């Protein structure tokens, strides 16, 4: 019985953590490419979910089509944001980037609230997968969908990164922007595209959440902080670290909630951030992360 509960918690933790992993990975992709942390990224996640909601519920479009529209729109948003709002202030202090990304997130949240007010929106279920039984442990349909879609996205992402020419370009810019520019990579275009990709990856997380949770305009903040926690835990700036950190965080939340107190689910992420940065700032898989004076 005890063992069954434990495995059950691990499974639901991995499912939840898969979402965090996706958010953390999309933050990392942008951070590595442009050295900017997108503090409005949680609102990109929210925007992805709301666009899907709008097309499915209001216009009666099938979910898959709505998902493609949401991804395209969010890619365009990320691209346009980098080109129009981030690039012009490149010379400014990094505090300006933080404010700019927060401000854009604020606009997105305001638009969502103006349209839907302060109510929470339920969306019809999309992936009604049958649960799988392994022994006496149940894997719910939602968990399968979460883990499946995230695994697929990660597979595609890492395949592109390590096995294609595009991926080589990305790796080159991650290593040295100047070096990449010298061998003919269009770094300016790269920055905009990587922002678009980051936004679209955030939207995938939103798309997964949309059919299974209640939607409200402020849902992004939770995922932003958990994304940060996952990044910190895995090692800030490490791509695989973001994934590992996300899944560990999801599992830790479930275990803490079940065995210690449900109150702790909310603060697991904060505790992880504080503990990791104070005790081991490089995280699990990170490299040099600290400036010492």
């Amino acid at each position, binding site marked *: 019985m005890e063992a069954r509960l434990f495995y059950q918690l691990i499974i639901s933790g991995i499912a939840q953590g898969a979402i965090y992993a996706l958010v953390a990975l999309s933050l990392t992709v942008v*951070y590595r490419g442009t050295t900017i*942390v997108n*503090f409005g990224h949680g609102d990109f996640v929210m925007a992805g979910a709301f666009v899907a909601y709008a097309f499915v519920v209001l216009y009666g479009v099938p979910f898959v089509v709505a998902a493609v529209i949401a991804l395209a729109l969010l890619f365009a948003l990320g691209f346009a944001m980098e080109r129009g*709002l981030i690039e*012009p*202030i490149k010379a*400014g*202090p*990094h*505090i*300006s980037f*933080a*404010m*700019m990304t*927060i*401000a*854009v*997130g*604020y*606009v*997105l*949240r*305001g*638009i*969502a*609230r*103006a*349209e839907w*007010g*302060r109510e929470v929106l339920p969306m019809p279920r999309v992936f009604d997968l049958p649960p799988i039984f392994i022994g006496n442990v149940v894997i719910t349909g939602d968990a399968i969908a979460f883990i499946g879609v995230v695994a697929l996205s990660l597979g595609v992402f890492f395949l592109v990164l390590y096995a294609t020419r595009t991926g080589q370009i990305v790796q080159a810019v991650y290593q040295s922007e100047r070096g990449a520019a010298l061998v003919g990579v269009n770094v300016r275009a790269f920055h905009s595209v990587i922002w678009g990709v980051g936004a679209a990856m955030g939207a995938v997380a939103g798309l997964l959440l949309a059919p299974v949770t209640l939607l409200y*305009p402020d849902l992004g*903040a939770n995922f932003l*902080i958990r994304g*940060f*926690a996952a990044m*910190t835990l895995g090692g*800030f700036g490490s791509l695989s670290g973001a994934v590992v950190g996300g899944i560990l965080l999801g599992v830790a939340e479930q275990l803490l909630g079940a065995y210690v107190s449900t*109150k702790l689910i*909310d*603060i697991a*992420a*904060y*505790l992880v*951030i*504080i503990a990791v*940065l*104070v005790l081991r*700032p490089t995280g699990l898989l990170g490299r040099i*992360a*600290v*400036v*010492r*004076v």
Partner: protein
Amino acid sequence: MKRDFKTRWLGSRAILDSRVFYFLPLLALFVPLLTNPYTQFVINLMLVYVLIAVGFNIVLGNLGQLAFTSTTCFGIGAYTTAIAMASLTLPFWIALLAGAAMGALAGLFASITALRGIRLYYLAIITLAFGELMRWVYIHADAVTRGTDGLPLPPAAFFGLSIDSEIKRFYLFLAITTLMVKGTSNLLRSRIGRAVVAIKDNEFATASLGIPTAHYIVLAFVWSGLVIGIAGGMFALLIGRVVPESFDLTALIFHFAMVMAGGLGNLAGSVLGAMLLTTMPEFLRSFPGIEEALFGILLVIVILLRPSGLASLLAGHLPMFRQRFYRER
């Protein structure tokens, strides 16, 4: 040396222009003649926010650290003041000092993380997490804070004078805010302020000049926490009931926006930014969502077109602001 009338009173800008700023609090003394209780409340709130912006700007603008400490210090200041008055039945001024001290302590903690080498986005994330953790504590330590219901304050008195109307609060707040802003302004123009700005520009070079950078980093965080802690105590008195959601991420964004809109590292700008952003939502309150979107768009425009803040707009047109602006930038 002969100094004629013109050089003494008009030619020497420094004397004429800086004196203008001494008249502002004097002019403000007459504000209650023009207000009703609600507008007076908004103006009192403005005085609280001026302190937050001025305090937050020390860390963000002058020291150049991306540390989101404002809601933490603000909340700790507010709760300390409220608990000291409600549970320990201390008089308001002692409770306010306690709030200031606890705010400064929160600043000290933040500075320790910064000194341990947690900088830039790491500092942003750890301070963000700490602020949210504190909010969780306010909600769940209901024995002391009464959780989400909020902690009500008993009627306050200041040395025997009861502070029971918005106008009385206004005069008290005006005195405190003027004192703290002037104090901060003096601090920033002293050796300490110059050291802090030097650390922002180049920490290694500053250290190599023999300036103890660690001391000044701690000092900047502590002073910032102190100023914001006082603002927290004033806020508790003004609202009359301290609730956890006053210190959430939205509040943090609002504080950040006041500093950015006014101008990073610009004290006059922070005062201006706080005044503008406190009054703006009052006109838009009836449109949920639109208000937020407009606020965001305004911020985007300011950062894009006026990266040095709205104070630089004034500096272009009013000589006394130009003087301040270029000196304190």
